[in-house]
């Protein structure tokens, strides 16, 4: 058994897949344009030809950053091409932000390079089967390339922009046409990756001149010029999404203040019009760090390629998302993410609405925009996002909502839990003392204790100028969020006048914001990924198991022969044999009968099979062959025939922590008899006296023995079976025992006594069954046996004579 378990564990460990040996990687620099050399790595899988995957890296890094992912897709049977985008790492050329004539042209060349490899599977001679996956900068490249080059058969774009104007100058209201406030910290962080690569290259670094100029102008003017808007639009997938025919998986992170979830929702909605497959994933990561779900995402991406490049039949839900606070870790009680899916995306979510309290929110914008609220901490990774998930503790203080500079439009306490997945909106009237307003809206939940949960610190900024004195009415598109609110919480729209990540007005003003509509939020029917079988599957299985278990125990119950014998004898033992599992033959072919009123001695030396016979008589062990009948009824475990039997076998058995009386009482109540228990008679016979009320633990051997015999006699059964009742008793007690047995037999009942002390039994018994090594030697009335051999005067001598010298030299009887 132990070995089997060890083998099982070992084979389980052996089943864990080990990474394949590093297969071939071909490094090559490819000239894609004059003065542009692209540094590439081609990963070849074991089985070829295979479909190819283009794997793009993010802004400011190189092909090395995606090496691990490349190996993963390679190990799963794809040719993988990674490269360093122009202007980064070892690739030459200038960074032009995925311009059609720049990076996207490079990618077309790279696809042509794949055509030269016979290892790459092709649809036709110039058209390889190729997928494209990338994140952020690489994600935009995936969308833009899929639009520009029809040879791409499947695309996956992670954490990227839909429109760079909206991402960098976000304006969260369709009622406003001017650009929103400048997202200066993120933009600066982003561009510094390009401009600060090498100080020797000058202030613009490897960044193309027009981009460098546009960035400078935006920082200085705090708003984009018409020319810059055109430039940003030229590298935005929003303009070309209608061109994409390849199945596209759009993926976005919740912890992303640079490219928030709304960007992906716009991309997804636009792609849906193209009549090709499109799915959406909202995972726990993003540019702010968040929850690392790389492993989960890789599997989803691989599924996408397996389905659309390899034609595998995989069902991929339209929408998958992660609740980053889905459940609590079983190991250290920290929060762990949980994945859900749905057949529809948030663009088709059910819109619910909840009334907000009519109280207007009043707040001030400080001079110079200082101090500023901190909703998220751009670019500092996971530390920032953890701080941003639950922005305030019990006290209600939150760095995202500074006193006097922020306000809330709140709902009443929720009567029902709410689970929001997707965008929300609200119509408000804004009045401003300066006629201008820059405001940061967010959707949040407030607990009864005042704690604020602002999902991932993502805000929806608006910037308005020319507000009339009576205020301006606009509908604000709040950030897409995944937010759970409990009963007793309230939903709220949080409004802050400042945010450190944005360019803020220098002039002070006072705002009053009033809710004009209920808050509209998205709810969806979602299914937990882990519970894909529905929650009733397992409980049904449990119920089924219960039924099967009942059936199993019923059908596999031992069958007992209900055969009858005539009732002439109280006990009939017929051809009884018992062979133990180890092959030891304890009883062989034993037959004898006991009539009513007899005192039968079952005699023989130790190991003769006496106890085994008695145990079979009690239904404790199963005969290998033969049967025992009592009053003509077969004996088996639980047989009603046993109800006429009182027994004492191989020593007493009591609950040591209870008194003798309690033991007898509990025994009587346990055995299902309804008649008279004859306690007084039994106690008189066995002479237990006052010891009866002491704990059995304190009893002497003799006392226990007598208590056990009293227990056997309770109810005065027709047959009393006693196994070695005199064992461990002193001579005086043995004499007393003899009296006890005779007293019992006097009542006309039957007693079977086993003993190895033949002389002792001679004085008690009327009949004898002599056994040796499992065999019957002699059986009959005592007198008859004693007179059979006139020379012998005791049972002992007769016994020795009957078995010859076998007892002495240990020879087996054959």
């Amino acid at each position, binding site marked *: 058994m132990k070995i089997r378990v060890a083998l099982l564990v070992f084979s389980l460990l052996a089943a864990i897949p080990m990474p394949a040996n590093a297969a071939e990687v071909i490094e090559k620099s490819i000239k894609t344009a004059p003065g542009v050399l692209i540094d590439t790595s081609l990963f070849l899988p074991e089985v070829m030809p295979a479909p190819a995957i283009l794997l793009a890296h993010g802004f400011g890094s190189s092909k090395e950053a995606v090496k691990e992912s490349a190996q993963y897709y390679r190990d799963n049977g794809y040719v993988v091409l990674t490269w360093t985008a122009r202007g980064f790492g070892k690739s030459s050329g200038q960074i032009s932000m995925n311009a059609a004539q720049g990076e996207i042209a490079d990618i077309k060349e790279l696809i042509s390079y794949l055509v030269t490899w016979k290892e790459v599977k092709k649809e036709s001679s110039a058209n390889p089967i190729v997928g494209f996956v990338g994140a952020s900068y690489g994600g935009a490249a995936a969308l833009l390339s899929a639009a520009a080059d029809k040879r791409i058969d499947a695309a996956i774009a992670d954490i990227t922009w839909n429109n760079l104007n909206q991402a960098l100058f976000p304006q969260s209201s369709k009622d406003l046409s001017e650009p929103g406030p400048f997202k200066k910290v993120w933009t600066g962080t982003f561009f510094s990756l390009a401009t600060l690569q090498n100080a020797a290259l000058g202030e613009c670094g490897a960044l193309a001149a027009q981009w460098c100029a546009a960035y400078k102008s935006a920082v200085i003017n705090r708003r984009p010029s018409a020319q810059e808007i055109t430039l940003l639009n030229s590298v935005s997938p929003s303009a070309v999404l209608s061109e994409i025919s390849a199945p596209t998986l759009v993926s976005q992170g919740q912890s992303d203040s640079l490219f928030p979830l709304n960007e992906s929702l716009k991309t997804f909605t636009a792609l849906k019009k193209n009549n090709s497959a499109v799915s959406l994933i909202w995972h726990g990561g993003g540019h702010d760090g968040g929850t690392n779900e790389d492993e989960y995402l890789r599997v989803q991406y691989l599924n996408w390629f397996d389905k659309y490049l390899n034609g595998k039949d995989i069902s991929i839900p339209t929408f998958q998302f992660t609740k980053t606070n889905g459940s*609590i870790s079983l190991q250290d009680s920290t929060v762990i993410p949980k994945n859900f899916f749905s057949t529809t995306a948030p663009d088709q979510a059910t819109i619910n609405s909840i009334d907000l309290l009519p109280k207007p929110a009043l707040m001030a914008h400080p001079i110079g925009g200082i101090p500023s609220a901190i909703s998220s901490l751009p670019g500092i990774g996971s530390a920032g996002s953890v701080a941003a998930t639950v922005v305030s503790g019990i006290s209600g203080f939150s760095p995202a909502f500074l006193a006097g500079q922020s306000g809330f439009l709140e709902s009443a306490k929720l009567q029902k839990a709410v689970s929001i997945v997707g965008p929300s909106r609200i119509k408000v009237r804004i009045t401003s003392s300066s006629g201008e307003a820059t405001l940061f809206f967010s959707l949040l939940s407030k607990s009864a204790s005042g704690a604020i949960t602002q999902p991932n610190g993502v805000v929806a900024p608006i910037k308005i100028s020319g507000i009339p004195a009576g205020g301006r009415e606009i509908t604000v598109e709040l950030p897409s969020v995944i937010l759970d609110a409990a009963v007793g919480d309230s939903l709220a729209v949080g409004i802050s006048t400042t945010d450190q990540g944005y360019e803020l007005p220098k002039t002070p003003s006072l705002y009053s914001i009033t809710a004009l509509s209920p808050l509209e939020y998205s709810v969806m029917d979602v299914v937990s990924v882990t519970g894909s079988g529905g929650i009733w599957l397992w409980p049904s299985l449990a119920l089924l198991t219960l039924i099967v278990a009942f059936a199993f125990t019923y059908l596999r119950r031992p069958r007992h022969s209900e055969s009858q014998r005539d009732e002439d004898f109280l006990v009939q033992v017929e051809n009884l044999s018992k062979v133990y599992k180890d092959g030891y033959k304890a009883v062989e072919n034993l037959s004898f009968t006991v009539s009513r009123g007899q005192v039968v001695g079952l005699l023989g030396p130790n190991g003769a099979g006496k106890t085994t016979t008695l145990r079979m008589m009690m239904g404790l062990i199963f005969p290998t062959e033969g049967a025992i009948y009592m009053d003509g009824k077969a004996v088996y475990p639980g047989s009603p025939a046993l109800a006429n039997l009182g027994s004492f076998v191989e020593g007493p058995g009591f609950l040591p922590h209870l008194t003798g009386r309690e033991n007898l009482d509990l025994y009587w109540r346990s055995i299902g008899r309804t008649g008279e228990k004859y306690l007084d008679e039994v106690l008189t016979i066995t002479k237990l006296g006052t010891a009866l009320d002491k704990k059995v633990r304190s009893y002497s051997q003799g006392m226990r023995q007598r208590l056990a015999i009293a227990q056997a006699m309770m109810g005065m059964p027709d047959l009393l079976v006693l196994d070695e009742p005199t064992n461990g008793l002193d001579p005086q007690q043995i004499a007393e025992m003899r009296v006890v047995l005779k007293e019992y037999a006097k009542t006309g009942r039957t007693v079977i006594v086993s003993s190895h002390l033949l002389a002792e039994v001679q004085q008690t018994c009327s009949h004898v069954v002599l056994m040796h090594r499992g065999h019957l030697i002699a059986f009959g009335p005592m007198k008859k046996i004693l007179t059979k051999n006139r020379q012998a005067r005791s049972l002992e001598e007769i016994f020795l004579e009957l078995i010859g010298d076998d007892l002495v030299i240990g020879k087996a009887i054959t």
Partner: protein
Amino acid sequence: MSYVVGKTLPYHVELYRQLKRKRTAFAYGFVLSLPILVALAVKFGPSGDDDEPSEFGSGATDIIGLATLGAANFTTTMLFFSTPFLLVTVVALFNGDTVASEASWSTLRYLLASPVPRTRLLIQKMKVSLTLSLIAVLLVPLSSWIVGAIAFGVAPLQTPLGVTFDNSLTFTRLAIMTVYLALSLLFVAGLAFYLSVRTDAPLGAVGGAVGISILLTILDAISALGSLRQWLPVHYADTWLDALSTTIDWSQMAKGASYCAISGILFYALAINKFAKKDITS
């Protein structure tokens, strides 16, 4: 004298026989002492290192950090503490000891020969040991709540997910957790009961069940085993934590409770099957 099968080893007699035992009192004593000792330690013990991430009652947003907010949070923490070992041991004791101790006292053969039919004996024993186990499981939240209320006052349940429940929801959630916990312990209960039928040594049955449970818990902690771990019943020991989510995702709890119940039922069925055919030699 007449003999009625339905009156052999009645439930209340077996319950009385078990309740009179010291080990029953000791087991309940252990269960009751946990919240009291923890509350005393937190109230009067020296305060620990502040840098510790999960300092008891530190206010850190995890189960242990929130323990001292009030009775409800204290109860959750006590459930968290008692799940992996305390309740496993107590349940293994009640179910593993029940038949094996009768064998070791030699009372088993007298009950069977009296005769209590074998399957009936096991079913009566099973009912009683499950009753005792359920009492132990209920004692944890009840005593913890009372102790928590005295030591830290009554406050709504605040979860590590940053949500505060109102009173009625708090009680519903605590009830859900307790019910799940009770169901998830069926695996240990069934295993211990099966071992109890297989051996005459009470310690062997109880120790065996606890040992196997610990072994499986260790296997469950080996992340290299990946998704194979979902087939270990102990994998679902702490899944009641799902009841702390704002909206409960029942899938894991339904699976975990069912899986533990299934494995428990199988062990009980095997025990009955085995016992029906066993030679009683104790």
